[in-house]
């Protein structure tokens, strides 16, 4: 897992071109993990469908588990400022992984703009890739 995210991050941020395949071994039994190829995610909805809905659910309503939850994006007042969801996507939050290595600035902006204009949200202002670039953190997965 760890290697996987690290490598992905390197590839994206440096524009490094992968060999024909990029099966990247990851850590531990997570281990067996290998990065399948990243989907092409041309817009915010694609990012949401291929990444976010695995936890926040297709309808953006989140889910309730063992005394803990995946928060809803539908009607969530924390989306008022676009900076906040952008920060969470980049850095992760609690058990939520960080996506700074997986998503480029445009994709982060796209998905933030998507969730702020769907699921009953109607925020008019949009986030630009430059805004994302400014707050992108440096996070590295541990060497194995």
């Amino acid at each position, binding site marked *: 897992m760890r290697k996987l995210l690290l490598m992905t991050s390197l590839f994206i941020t440096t524009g490094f071109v992968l060999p024909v*395949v990029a099966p990247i071994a990851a850590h531990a039994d997570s281990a*067996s*993990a290998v990065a399948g190829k990243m989907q092409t995610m041309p817009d915010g909805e694609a990012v949401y469908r291929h990444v976010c*809905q695995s936890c926040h659910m297709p309808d953006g309503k989140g889910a309730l588990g063992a005394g803990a939850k995946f928060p809803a994006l539908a009607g969530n007042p924390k989306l008022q400022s676009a900076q906040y969801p952008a920060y969470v996507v980049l850095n992760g939050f609690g058990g939520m992984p960080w996506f700074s290595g997986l998503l480029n600035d445009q994709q982060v902006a796209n998905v933030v703009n998507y969730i702020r204009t769907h699921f009953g949200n109607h925020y008019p202002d949009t986030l630009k890739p430059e805004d994302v670039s400014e707050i992108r953190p440096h996070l590295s997965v541990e060497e194995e």
Partner: protein
Amino acid sequence: MPHAHPPTAPTRRQLLTRIGTLAGSAALYQAMTTLGHAMGTDFRGPPKLTGAKRGTRVLVLGSGLAGMLSAYELRKAGYDVQILEFQSRSGGRNISLRGGDTVTELGGATQKVGFAPGNYINPGPWRIPYHHQGLLHYCREFGVQLEPFVELNHNSWLHSTGAFGGKAVRYRELASDFNGFTAELLAKAIDQHKLDEFVSDDERAHIRQAMKSWGALNKDMAYTKGNTSSLRRGFEKPQGGGIDGAPVPSDLFARKDVMESGLWNWIAFHERLDMQTTMFQPVGGMDQIGKGFTRQVKDLITLNCKVSSIHQDDHGVTVTYTDTAHGDAVRTAQADYCVCTIPLSVLSQLDVQVTDGMKAAIAAVPYASSVKMGLEFKRRFWEEDDQIYGGISFTDQQISQISYPSHGIFSKGPAVLLGGYMFGPAAYDFAGMTPEQRLQRALDQGMAIHPQYRKEFSNGVSFAWSRVPWTLGCCSMWTEEARKTHYKTLCSIDNRLVLAGEHASYVGCWQEGAILSALDAVTRLHKRALGAA
């Protein structure tokens, strides 16, 4: 090499005895390690905790391996131990699915497992490295029978959509050719004096010799089509008996294709310490370990307890929970100390009374997303048609791998294989699908390696860890930054509370991490309790 040591050298035991006599046991341990013994994780035997103050109570939260082992060792030390578990089963992420089982995930999707009797899939941990001596110790102590898990299979498939025209190649073909061509290049560089500047005469001769044997080069130091290379990669017409028994060597791949393929990643994969042979699995499913642990502490476990808060003061710990088996009654449990093994993905959302530093540590560790697919087929076509007995085929498609059962080999009738094991982008994508979509996608992708897939398919189940209510993810995923800032705090005893689990270890995502973390936590807690007595 058959004769690596001259016959006059002392035997290993003679040598160790001499070192032990001369230098004492520390040197002996060091020497043993150097000579290849005593290797493993940082397990130095079970703790021998004794002399707990009578009546001291410890509350353990969670009945995964870390929780149950903590309870086992603490009770042995003399504590009054109680375990609260959220699920209606013990074992935690140590789990196996069989026919008749039901999987209900967050979002509501429910799957009924349709496997034939005797078949199972391990959606969580599924293999144990030989050097995970902590886990192996307790398996032995608790009577859990183990069998070999086939990790590396030279006859398995390696597949990349962009290499070899999208056709899968055998591991042995790819590995032989990669080694052979690499050895040839190095030998050539030596013979053309390209390495004279860096490598001494003697060493060049050794390397040259090594390349010849490692890479299966011919007498001219070339890797070419012939018996020598085919005895590695396999023959076009295999060796036979009788009048027409002569083998026909196979063609090599083009070097350029091998190097471009990226498939060499899978050679490296098996070389990792974690994946080296011999690996093990419990006979009858990974959950036999959870059951073995449960046998030791069953009387201490209360199931169906949803913890909502953990409070503590100078006198003790109070845990509030909902008893979901009894009309959601809200109850409290009190103890002198608490060992909390609740996954951080959940714990970080509960009301936990700890220092700010500990609170920050609990919230600092994201959980990886992972998806596994268990597919049942009507027959073992991978054995019958492809001579693949256990092991793993790899692909650059989302499913990433297909692993064949290490058990029941040669048996007739339906069998279950691991039809996908994903982390990262593929796991997010698969977890976001319906179970039916996951199955269809796994079958489509599996067809690229096994054209028999559709015809032989019977039924399947998917397990998306990010949709599991009691973990909200698969396992801990530390960043370097978080480890530096928070790890020591996470492992420290916070007044009367200590955390345990794979997340509090450097063996994250492995059961061994849970074992070593639990042993360390209870050892320190015991010391603390005695000190405070």
